[in-house]
């Protein structure tokens, strides 16, 4: 570590005035950055992380302005020519936090620093002014940086850039926004030779990934790493699993059984954060808590789909200490300092050890006090998961995923961005792109294909050369062929969106036969995923924003709803924000389930359940796959226990269904949970296995990821949805035409057709490659399924039973609650059409 330079007096005085002393990690980071290095700070929330990140920038700005004052004779101040510091964060609740961490210190120290924000919502006149007269510090998003980089004056704007501060970097790098940011950083390093990157992160499994992300990588194999500063960890948290007197449910995710106990805990603490995994769980739990809230404790709701205004209100009340509890999803996961939270309750499965650690970090921000957390499993399998998470936390294990490989669709967007600013030389741009850790392994051929994709669509059939958007000049530089294309890019970029969403607006209810048009101008309640609304018919009721709502209809990109008198929503859930169980915790669950010696720490009910399983069937062994078959109600079931998360299980279910179909066993459907998968049909599956007609080793053979997967994917709606996303990000289809907004709905039709044509005629096209990569890790979780299949290859145990086993009960109870897959669309249609024929004959 370099020698610690002293903070200017203004700063030390300010710390003293607050009775604070700068923390060791704050000074260490400051020293590293002053020495000209980029650095990564790893610290728990509440460690003054954001201030630590800003300290080098504030001191530098202060000293610049002091120097300016000294040579007061000079007319112009030097610091105002361009941007000095960029700050980026994935946080939605950024405004509140920045105020506390930045505006207050600046004001109290009397620093003359201009601070501004810029996002998609910033009015265009302000955006224009920011380009002309940039502030010292700009708080913004990766998309906005890309847009600024596409400006013709980008070189001037960023020439004097000193610092880029990336808050919650561990979260930023997990998505395509992280890819976009990685590419933007390569550009910024070229434009601003003095640039230093400061990454702020929670504790993660692979800190070197982030260290490499922050700095330029050489063309050789060697890896450059940013300096690392690690804050001393605070006291170990007190985590416990709720000891319930109630009966633990077999299945489900509602935790209603524990409601009174959760309520008692809320009463006994000052402020409690109640974390749940999905928005529907948040809605449900919030309603149920209020149903028993006899003392009308101030309990609020916070999730990412709610209207911004409503969220801000909750955050403000929270900061003012007026709330007793907030029921929230990951929208509150990230590093907001809320002060007086003394308890975190995690309802449902923790899903990942690091995720849990970050949630628990919300409680008690005085670093040396222990946070207190209670885990509430919502069913018996989740008890195992909670126990695994608890042990991981005690051992300090992290299970964040490794750094993702940069997406090709994002690369295409970046190429257009660079071209809009100035003509570029492909070889030089390639070297620039692979200087980022995310795109290090990109082959030159693939890069060239991406350039061709931007220019002409990159099709093997060179049909569009005469319409090319990028054309080589005599000097071999690529330039945008018409200003219209640059304008198109600016309107369409910045669309790293996960799912098309619709705004939810509350209107007055309409009678069933009313011809009156839907009223508009009602209150905005938030946003909801398009696919959920697509499943609704007018008149259906569902829970959203803490109330039961009736769907009234759809107009452009808004869903109209009215308040419903009904207590029981007809459409039970919508699963916003589901993420699969981490591989690490999955292993923990597998090991618990297989090893009776480890059961002493489990609650009695769960122990008995597992004992019973051992007696009636057998325990799933750690390195093997257990497959059970049994008849029930005229149907024959096959249940297996891969413990690989719902997404991988769904994909597995689709593929097994196809194989069983081919074997002539006519499966009827399947349902998947986080831990197991159940398939059923009218034929005796157990008999087929014992008689040797169906071989399990063959059924679960890894080659299902070849042709079967290919055949299924060509018609999978998940694949088409993934493709749509890639098509939009890469700029193939427009999100907006100048002057007219295209809604997500219209795009659906078009991209599905494009997908069909492309899949048939050029299956190895760049965009399909990008789609495939996304699907492998995203909605289909193919990579995880692949690991699983090779792990259990020839290691399958069959247990033929005469009735349902204890371990199979949870997944069978999910039938009817979870969507059932397996019956093809054609059969659905035939079924519906046959109904009609029957009716006609009556």
């Amino acid at each position, binding site marked *: 570590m370099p020698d610690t330079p002293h903070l200017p007096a203004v700063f030390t005085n300010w710390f003293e005035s607050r009775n604070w002393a700068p923390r060791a990690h704050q000074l260490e980071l400051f020293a590293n950055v002053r020495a000209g290095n980029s650095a990564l700070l790893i610290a728990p929330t509440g460690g003054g992380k954001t201030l630590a990140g800003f300290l080098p920038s504030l001191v530098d700005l202060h000293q610049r302005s002091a120097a300016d004052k000294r040579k007061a004779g000079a007319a112009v101040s030097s610091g105002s020519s361009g941007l000095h510091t960029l700050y980026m964060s994935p946080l939605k609740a950024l405004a509140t936090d920045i105020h506390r961490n930045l505006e207050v210190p600046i004001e109290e120290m009397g620093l003359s620093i201009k601070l501004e924000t810029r996002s998609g919502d910033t009015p265009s006149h302000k955006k224009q002014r920011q380009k002309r007269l940039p502030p010292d510090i700009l708080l913004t998003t990766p998309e906005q940086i890309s847009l600024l980089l596409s400006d013709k004056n980008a070189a001037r704007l960023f020439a004097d850039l000193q610092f880029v501060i990336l808050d919650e970097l561990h979260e930023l790098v997990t998505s395509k926004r992280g890819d976009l940011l990685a590419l933007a950083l390569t550009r910024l390093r070229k434009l601003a030779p003095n640039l230093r990157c400061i990454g702020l992160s929670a504790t993660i499994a692979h800190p070197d990934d982030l260290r490499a992300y922050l700095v330029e990588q050489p063309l050789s194999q060697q890896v450059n790493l940013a300096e690392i500063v690690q804050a001393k960890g605070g006291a170990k948290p007190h985590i416990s699993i709720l000891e319930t007197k109630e009966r633990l449910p077999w299945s489900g995710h509602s935790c209603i059984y524990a409601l009174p106990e959760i309520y008692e805990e809320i009463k006994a603490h000052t402020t409690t954060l109640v974390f749940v995994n999905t928005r529907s769980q948040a809605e449900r739990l919030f309603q149920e808590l209020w149903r028993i809230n006899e003392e009308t404790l101030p309990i609020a709701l916070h999730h990412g789909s709610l209207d911004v205004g409503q969220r801000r209100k909750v955050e403000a009340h929270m900061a003012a200490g007026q709330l007793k509890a907030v029921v929230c999803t990951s929208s509150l996961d990230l590093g907001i300092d809320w002060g007086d939270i003394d308890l975190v309750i995690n309802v449902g499965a923790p899903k990942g050890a690091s995720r849990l650690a970050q949630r628990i970090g919300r409680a008690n921000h005085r670093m040396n006090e222990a946070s207190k957390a209670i885990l509430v499993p919502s069913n018996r399998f989740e008890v195992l998961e909670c126990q695994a998470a608890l042990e991981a936390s005690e051992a300090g294990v992290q299970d964040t995923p490794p750094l993702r490989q940069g997406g090709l669709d994002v690369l295409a967007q970046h190429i257009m961005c660079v071209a809009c600013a100035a003509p570029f030389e492909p070889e030089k741009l390639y070297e620039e792109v692979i200087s980022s850790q995310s795109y290090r392994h990109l082959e030159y051929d693939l890069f060239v294909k991406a350039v061709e994709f931007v220019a002409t669509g990159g099709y093997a059939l060179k049909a569009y050369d005469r319409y090319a958007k990028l054309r080589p000049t005599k000097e071999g530089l690529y330039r945008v062929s018409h200003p219209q294309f640059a304008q198109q890019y600016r309107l369409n970029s910045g669309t790293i969106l996960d799912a098309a969403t619709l705004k939810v607006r509350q209107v007055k209810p309409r009678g069933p036969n009313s011809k009156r048009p839907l009223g508009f101008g009602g209150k905005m309640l938030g946003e909801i995923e398009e696919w959920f609304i697509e499943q609704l018919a007018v008149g259906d009721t569902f829970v959203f924003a803490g109330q039961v709502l009736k769907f009234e209809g759809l107009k452009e990109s808004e869903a109209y709803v009215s308040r419903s008198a009904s207590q029981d929503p007809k459409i039970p859930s919508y699963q916003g924000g589901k993420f699969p169980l981490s591989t690490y915790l999955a292993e923990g669950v597998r090991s618990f389930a297989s090893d009776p010696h480890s059961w002493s720490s489990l609650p009695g009910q769960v122990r008995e359940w597992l004992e019973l399983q051992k007696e009636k069937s057998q325990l799933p062994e750690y390195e093997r796959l257990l497959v059970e078959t049994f008849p029930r109600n005229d149907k024959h079931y096959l249940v297996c226990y891969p413990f690989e998360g719902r997404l991988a299980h769904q994909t597995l279910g689709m593929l097994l269904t196809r194989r069983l179909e081919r074997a002539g066993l006519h499966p009827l459907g399947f349902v998947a949970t986080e831990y197991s998968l159940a398939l059923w049909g009218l034929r005796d599956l157990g008999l087929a296995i014992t008689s040797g007609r169906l071989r399990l080793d063959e059924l679960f053979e890894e080659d299902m990821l070849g042709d079967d997967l290919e055949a299924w994917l060509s018609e999978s709606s998940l694949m088409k949805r993934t493709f749509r996303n890639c098509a939009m990000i890469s700029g*193939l289809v427009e999100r907006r035409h100048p002057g007219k907004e295209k809604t997500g709905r219209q795009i659906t039709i078009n991209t599905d057709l494009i997908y069909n044509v492309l899949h048939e005629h050029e299956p190895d096209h760049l965009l399909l490659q990008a789609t495939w990569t996304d699907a492998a890790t995203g909605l289909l979780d193919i990579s995880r399924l692949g690991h699983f299949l090779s792990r259990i290859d020839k290691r399958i145990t069959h247990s033929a039973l005469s009735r349902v086993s204890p371990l199979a009960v949870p997944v069978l109870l999910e039938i009817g609650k979870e969507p059932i897959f397996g019956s093809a669309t054609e059969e659905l249609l035939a079924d519906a059409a046959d109904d009609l024929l029957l009716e006609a004959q009556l």
Partner: protein
Amino acid sequence: MSVNRQLQPRVEPSYRQPVPVCHDLSLGQELVGLHDSGGLWWPEEQTLVVSDLHLEKAASIAKTKGVMLPPYDTAATLEKLAALIDLFSPRRVICLGDSFHDSESSARMPAAYRAMLATMQLGREWIWITGNHDPEIAPSVCGERFEELSISSLCFRHEPNEDADCGEICGHLHPAAKVRRMGRTVRRACFATNGNRLMLPAFGALTGGLNVMDNAFSKVFAERRFSVFMLGNGRLFPFTASKLISD
């Protein structure tokens, strides 16, 4: 051994198998067959009808908007049409308008596609009904042009005519229908008819569909009295309008 040639059954060449399956529908005074490809077969006149091919759509959009959609739509559409012609061996083919995505498309179409089209046209009558996208078709493209055409009791035009008396066959709106079953929805291109008028789905590979519950259809089929036949794989799925949902 003498063979009475007239009584000998005609041997179908094997590539003609399987025999085309159509859903019979009586329209005006004629019996027509709806095929799951979206084409219409009129056995009496040995006539095949398709609508809204939108040939060269991707190229047209690439040229005018710089959006580079896959340039395979024309080939895909022509291949599908060729297969259909192979299946029915029609004496006459009627394209119900919007056959080309814009007025220059017919002239701009690459030689390979022109050859494909010319091959299909050999030995049969070919009729282009003009549509709003292709009021002009380049003279180099063979086939007769009509704004509308009556044969027997049927009338063929691109856009539905509000006061057509009966037996109208049209396209233009790209009908598609959506049904819900067991919590899932299915949306497909479809034929739409009220017994007097039949609207064909768009045949082109890159042509989207408009939901028949959309207001644009209220003038075509008054008071939602119509049925649809959704395109399936090897069959059609009939529904009355009351069973359909909007987008």
